[in-house]
C-alpha cells in the first residue's frame, strides 16, 4: 500500500460512475472535487497518493496544484498510508474535561506506535482530533466511520484491541 503508485493512474470505474451522478447536482464541474477526493481516498485504502491526487485532477480537468491545495487544507484527507482502522480521538475541551488525555494515552500504549504512525501489521493508526460533536458522551473517539462514546481508558483499550 505504501508503494509509490504509477503516474497515469486512473480512478476506478465505480468511482467514475458515481462522479457522473454527482456532477448533475452542481452548476460547475469543480464542485465535485471534495466528493471525488472522498471517493478516491476510500477506494485507495484510506489515503491519497500523488498518483491518485493527479488522477482526480485529470478526471476533473483541474491543475494538479489546485487539487493538492485542497487536499492539504482538509483534515479528513491523508497523504500518507493509514491503518486499516483509522482512530480519531477527540481531545477538544469537552472531551478533555472528562478524560480524553487518558484515553489517548491508553490507545498509544495499546498500539505501541506514535500518533499518525501505522502499526507494523497495518491494522491501526490514530490521531487526536478536534471536536467531533459528541460532547454529551465525552470522552469519545471515531473509528473509521463509527463513534465510540462514554469512554474510559480501559474501554478504549478494549475496543482498539478487538479491531481486526
Amino acid at each position, binding site marked *: 500500500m505504501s508503494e509509490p503508485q504509477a503516474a497515469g493512474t486512473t480512478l476506478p470505474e465505480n468511482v467514475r460512475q458515481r462522479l457522473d451522478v454527482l456532477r448533475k447536482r452542481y452548476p460547475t464541474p469543480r464542485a465535485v472535487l471534495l466528493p471525488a477526493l*472522498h471517493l478516491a481516498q476510500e477506494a485507495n485504502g484510506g489515503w491519497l497518493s500523488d498518483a491518485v491526487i493527479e488522477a482526480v485532477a485529470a478526471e476533473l480537468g483541474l491543475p494538479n496544484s489546485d487539487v493538492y491545495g485542497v487536499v492539504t487544507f482538509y483534515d479528513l484527507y491523508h497523504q500518507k498510508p493509514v491503518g486499516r482502522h483509522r482512530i480519531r480521538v477527540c481531545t477538544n475541551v*469537552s472531551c478533555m474535561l472528562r478524560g480524553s*488525555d487518558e484515553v489517548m494515552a491508553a490507545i498509544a500504549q495499546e498500539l505501541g506506535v506514535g500518533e499518525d504512525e501505522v502499526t507494523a501489521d497495518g491494522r491501526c493508526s490514530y490521531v487526536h482530533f478536534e471536536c467531533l460533536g459528541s*460532547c454529551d458522551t465525552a470522552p469519545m473517539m471515531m473509528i473509521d466511520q463509527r463513534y465510540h462514546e462514554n469512554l474510559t481508558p480501559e474501554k478504549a483499550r478494549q475496543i482498539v484491541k478487538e479491531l481486526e
Partner: protein
Amino acid sequence: MAFEPVLSRNVGHPEALTVRGYRDRGGYVALEKGLKMEPAAITEEVKASGLRGRGGAGFPTGLKWTFIPKDSPKPKYLVCNADESEPGTFKDRLLMEKDPHQLIEGCLLTSFAVGAATTYIYIRGEYVDAANILERAIADAYQSGILGANVMGSGFRHDIYVHRGAGAYICGEETGLLESLEGKRGQPRVKPPFPAVVGAFGCPTVINNVETICCVPHIIERGSAWFKAIGPDERNTGPKLYAVSGHVERPGTYELPIGVTFQELLDVCGGIWKGRQLKAYVPGGASAPVLSADDRHLRLDFDTMAKAGSMLGSAAVMVMDDTTDMVRVCYRFAKFFSHESCGQCTPCREGTNWLTLLLHRILDGHGEPKDLDLIVSVANQIGGNSLCALGDAAVGPAKSFVTKFRHEFLARMGAAAPALAS
C-alpha cells in the same frame, strides 16, 4: 420548568425518520399550509417571529431572507449550514439524526419563501451517520412527492442535495463554506458582496443553520405570535437547544425557552458532577469568552450574553468544576484556533500561533508574569484585523481566561505541568 419540546419533539420517536411516520406525528402540515401562502408572507411571518440565527451570530433570519434580490435573473440557492464544528456543539447532529424531515420541511419552506430551486445541505465530513440518515430521508421525500418537480402538487420545484465537508472548522463560516462547496479551500471571502447577492456559484444565496431552518415549519404552522411568546423579550424569542457538556451530572441537548438562566439549565442537567462546585462556564462554544461562577444567574440569550461580554453563540454550554485547570483549558482553545486558522490573514495565522506558544510556555512552567500582558497585546492585534470572525473568536477565550483567572496563570509561573497527550 415544564416546556413542551418543539424542535426535539420527535427525539425518541424513530418512526419520524420516514415520511409516513413524520406525517403521522403532524409533520409536513406546515409545508402544505406554506405552499398556499404568498412567498413574501412566509418571510414576513418569520420576520415577525423574531427568529434569530442559531448558528452563532444571532442575525434576524427573516431580514436575511429579504436581502435576496427580487429581480435577479440568476438561480437562487439555499445552503443549510450543517458544518457544526464549534467545540462543544452537538445540537444540529441531534436534529439531523433524529428528525431529518423537520429539516427537509424547513428547507422547503425557506426555499419557497426566497424562490430557491435547490438546497445544498453542507454537512461536516465527520457526521457520516447524519449524512446517511438525511440521504435516506431525502430519497423517501422524493418518492413521496415532497421533493422534485412538483412539491406536494403545488407546482413548486425543489431539489435537496447533501454535500459532505472534509474536516475544517472554518467551513462553518458562511463564505468559507461556499468556497468549500464550490470545490476549493475553505478560505472566507471578502464581504461585501454578501452571499445574498453573490453566494454559491456566483448566485444569490441564503445560508441558514440547521436549527434555524428547523424553527421555520413551527412558525408557519403555529404563527409568529406563538413563537414570539416564548422567551424573555422581543429580541430573544423561541425554543432553543442548549448543548451542555463538561462537568455536569447529565450532559446532553436540552430544549428550553431561549433565555433560561445558566443556573436553571444547570439544575436541569443535575448540577455539577461529583458534588463539586462550579468554577466557570463557556456559554456558546469555544468562541465565547468564559464566564465565572458569579455569572450563574445570567440569562442565556443573545443580548444578556453580549452585555456580559460573552456571546450565546451556538449555545454550546461547557461547564467547568472547581478542580479545572484554567491554564490548560485556555491553551487547548488557543491550539484549536491556531490549527483551524485558514492562514489567509496574517494577524490570525501568526497571532493564533503565538497565543498557543505563549500559553504552552506558561503551561510548561516557563512563563513569566509579563507573558500575560503579551497575550492580551497579541490578542488585541488579531481582533478586528482579519477577514472573518475566526480571528475575533480566538481572541475572546484567550483574553477572558487570562483576565478573569489571572491568579491561576500567575500560580503556574515556575511550576511544571504534567505531560499532555494533546
